[in-house]
């Protein structure tokens, strides 16, 4: 009896905590499911036009069919590859240039007007120019992603270096850090939290731009799949394309959050 009392109390506590998180999870999962159910019912009752809003059950059937035929995977893989190379080709130079611009005032003075003038140009508006320069092949798609990733990373890297406490630069000077060492041991790590924000924004921008670029003059990719579905009026396939892009966006966010935890272990908030 004496032993069982505290055990019993602990049990109650554990169950209360479990039910709270479980309840949140159940609500989080059930709200989109409920919406899908309402959608399904609305279409079946004829309240919503099935030509524009096919019922979720039919989208699911199309999804399965596209997976089985390998079409979905081929298009997703094509987009992923372009995203990867574009992010690398746009992100790495932006990071290096941003850190140098943040560190050296004359370079910043020289390049800031260029960045400020070109940044507001809608990236989608330069797609024709990109197609002209890079042709209809892979290069133009990768270039679009690279441009999309370049600006957020660059701007955040510059801001990241500028917000570093001046005292750290004094410490570097006092302890005899060379120019290169100042960049690698102070400017880069100090700017890293903001650079990661830039990368997250850049990858989001890349996802938008790859969809647009693939709609014009592409023979593969999720953007192409959506555009092609419009042309043959396969509305369900369009929805599958949108769904996959949404899932990719979410997956990238989770992946980059994990990457951030790994490369910025000194941040107090995780």
């Amino acid at each position, binding site marked *: 009896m004496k032993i069982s009392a505290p055990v019993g109390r602990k049990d109650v506590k554990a169950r209360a905590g479990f039910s709270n998180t479980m309840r949140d999870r159940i609500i989080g999962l059930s709200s989109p499911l409920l919406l899908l159910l309402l959608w399904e019912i609305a279409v079946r009752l004829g309240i919503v036009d099935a030509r524009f809003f096919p019922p979720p059950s039919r989208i699911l059937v199309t999804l399965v069919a596209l997976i089985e035929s390998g079409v979905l995977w081929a298009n997703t893989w094509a987009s992923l590859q372009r995203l990867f190379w574009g992010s690398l080709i746009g992100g790495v130079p932006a990071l290096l240039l941003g850190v140098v611009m943040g560190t050296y005032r004359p370079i910043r003075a020289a390049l800031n007007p260029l960045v400020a003038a070109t940044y507001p140009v809608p990236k989608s508006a330069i797609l024709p120019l990109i197609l002209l320069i890079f042709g209809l092949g892979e290069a133009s798609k990768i270039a679009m992603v690279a441009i999309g990733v370049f600006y957020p990373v660059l701007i955040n890297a510059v801001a990241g270096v500028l917000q570093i*406490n001046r*005292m*750290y630069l*004094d*410490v*570097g*000077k*006092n*302890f*005899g*850090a*060379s120019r290169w*060492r100042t960049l690698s*041991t*102070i400017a880069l*790590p*100090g700017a*890293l939290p903001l650079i990661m924000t830039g990368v997250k924004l850049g990858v989001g921008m890349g996802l938008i731009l790859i969809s647009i670029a693939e709609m014009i003059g592409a023979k593969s990719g999720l953007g192409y799949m959506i555009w092609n579905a419009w042309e043959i009026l396969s509305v369900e396939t369009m929805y599958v394309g949108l769904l996959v892009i949404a899932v990719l966006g979410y997956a990238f966010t989770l992946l980059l959050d994990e990457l951030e935890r790994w490369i*910025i*272990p*000194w*941040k*107090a908030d995780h």
Partner: protein
Amino acid sequence: MQSLSTPELSVGEGVPPAKIVVRELRKEFRTRNDTFVAIDHISLEIDQGAFFMIVGPSGCGKTTLLRILAGLDTPTSGEVRIVQEDPSKPGNSMVFQGDSIFPWMTVWDNAAYGLRMRNRPQHEIDEVVGHYLDRTGLTRFASAYPHQLSGGMKQRVSIARAFANDPEILLMDEPFSALDEQNRTLLQEELLRIWDETKKTVVFITHSVDEAVTLGDRIMVMTAQPGREKALIDVPFERPRHVLELRARPAYGELVYSIWSRLRDEVQQARLQDEAIGSK
């Protein structure tokens, strides 16, 4: 008990030569339509191995003087000479005011920073850093990041970083001013213990008269804007010192009181100046 002397110190026969010589130092900062004199007519001679304290009201240019000694600022006029005995050693290392250790490096990497920047061999870095982390009680926290440490621990890292760099002189800019009373006393005690092992020349800035008397061999009291030398006071207490024991002595209290009475005018003048600026 205490001696007042003019800036021109006489150097007798057989006395070790001064480690740091400062002559007629002046630093001005230009604002849009005004010239602000931070320090003026500062002349000093600091002996090899001395623990030299500079005490003055806030805004008296103490930090400016230290930054000039560190080579982080250039004087408007005057001269600074630091005798470099071993050219392989760095001229100075500074313990900065506030949080100056890199948040993106572990305690170990922070302490090793100076040695790494000077490309010292790894076995030397391991040995020296290990020694000073041990001395500052940080061995257990070697792989911790600064955000996991208390303010006192962070300042210990900063001290370990400066000592590990093995400089010719150590410059300390109010390193304990942000700490609570207990931590400050503890760190003063630890600093004295580490310093006793190395006997490096130290220039230590503080606004606390207590701290100046506790730590220093000689104290320069500075005036408020512009910062000038008001008095130079020898501290007669023997070493090694024990902070609490020292503070219990009547002679300690007398010395603190006598310095305070000199400083009081300056603090009041600094406040009047602040109020004058505020009312403009």
